[in-house]
């Protein structure tokens, strides 16, 4: 997509705003609509937009595959880890009351951490799924390049 300079510049302007909005949704979910799931999807949407406009190779440079491979299970581990921590502190599994000196603070801490876990897993998982789909279509068995997601929008209707 080298020729679409308007698209590239607007994307460059938009991506920081998308990621900032994702952080807002992540950490403001206690007060307004949103939370880890929505924030994770927005982060993934930002990365997918980047990959669509600048190509999959550039996007893979920005966020390496091994980082995604670590982040996908990390979020689940954070979530389950909060549950195990509350077990060790003498409560039930995922009972946040025991996490801090008083129950309400414990609930705040617990919710913050599990939402973070959800956000990390969702963002990494959706980005990975997109990379898997988009990366698959690049070459057919004979090594010739076939259609990519980014090309699809420009092809004339058959």
């Amino acid at each position, binding site marked *: 997509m080298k020729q679409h300079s308007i698209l590239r510049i607007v994307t460059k302007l938009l991506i920081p705003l998308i990621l900032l909005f994702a952080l807002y949704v992540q950490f403001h979910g206690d*007060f307004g609509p949103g939370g880890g799931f929505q924030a994770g*999807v927005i982060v993934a949407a930002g990365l997918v937009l980047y990959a669509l406009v600048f190509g999959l190779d550039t996007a893979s440079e920005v966020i390496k595959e091994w980082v995604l491979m670590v982040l996908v299970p990390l979020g*689940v581990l954070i979530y389950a880890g909060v549950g195990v921590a509350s077990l060790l502190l003498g409560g039930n599994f*995922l009972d946040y009351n025991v996490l801090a000196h008083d129950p309400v603070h414990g609930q705040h801490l617990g*919710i913050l951490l599990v*939402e973070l876990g959800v956000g990390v897993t969702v963002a990494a998982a959706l980005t990975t799924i997109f990379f898997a789909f988009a990366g698959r279509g690049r070459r057919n068995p004979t090594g010739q390049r076939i259609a990519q997601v980014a090309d699809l929008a420009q092809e004339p209707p058959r």
Partner: protein
Amino acid sequence: MSTLIDLILLTLMAITAIAALQLKDLFGAVMLTGIYSLLSALWFLILDAADVSFTEAAVGAGISTVLMLGTLALTRRDEKIPSHPRILPLFVVAITGAILVYGTLDMPAFADPEAPIHTHVAPHYIEKSGEEIGVPNIVTSVLASYRGYDTLGETTVIFTACIGVLLLLGIGRRREDDES
């Protein structure tokens, strides 16, 4: 005024769904499903379900449209016309739909305050979550604390889905292709 907006939105959703069914060009059909998701997000917003609306707009209109386009890039762009009429699928769909409609006949009226869902745990969440959890957004309290097990399950489902896609499509396979 509110009824008018409801009617317009629902009519637009029906038109979009029928148009998506009729289109043989799958690229256009995918775009229409994205529009359908956006319309249903608006619809959820009118029903005061801001969190659901948010999710629908981000997942339905955003990510799944892109994933469907990714699938199209791997397969083909136009729909395969079946050589003979499909009677059995039509029969199954009609029966399933009829059973589902029959199931709704027993349900309490929309927004009935005496409905079981409003008399079981919901009053406790609404009255007590302020002092028990201390988070203004009750949806977050229910999702992350009261129903923490469910959300852990959902996160595991997404994790499993990611593993499944990787096993089927393989993110590392690209590198092998480049070498060969």
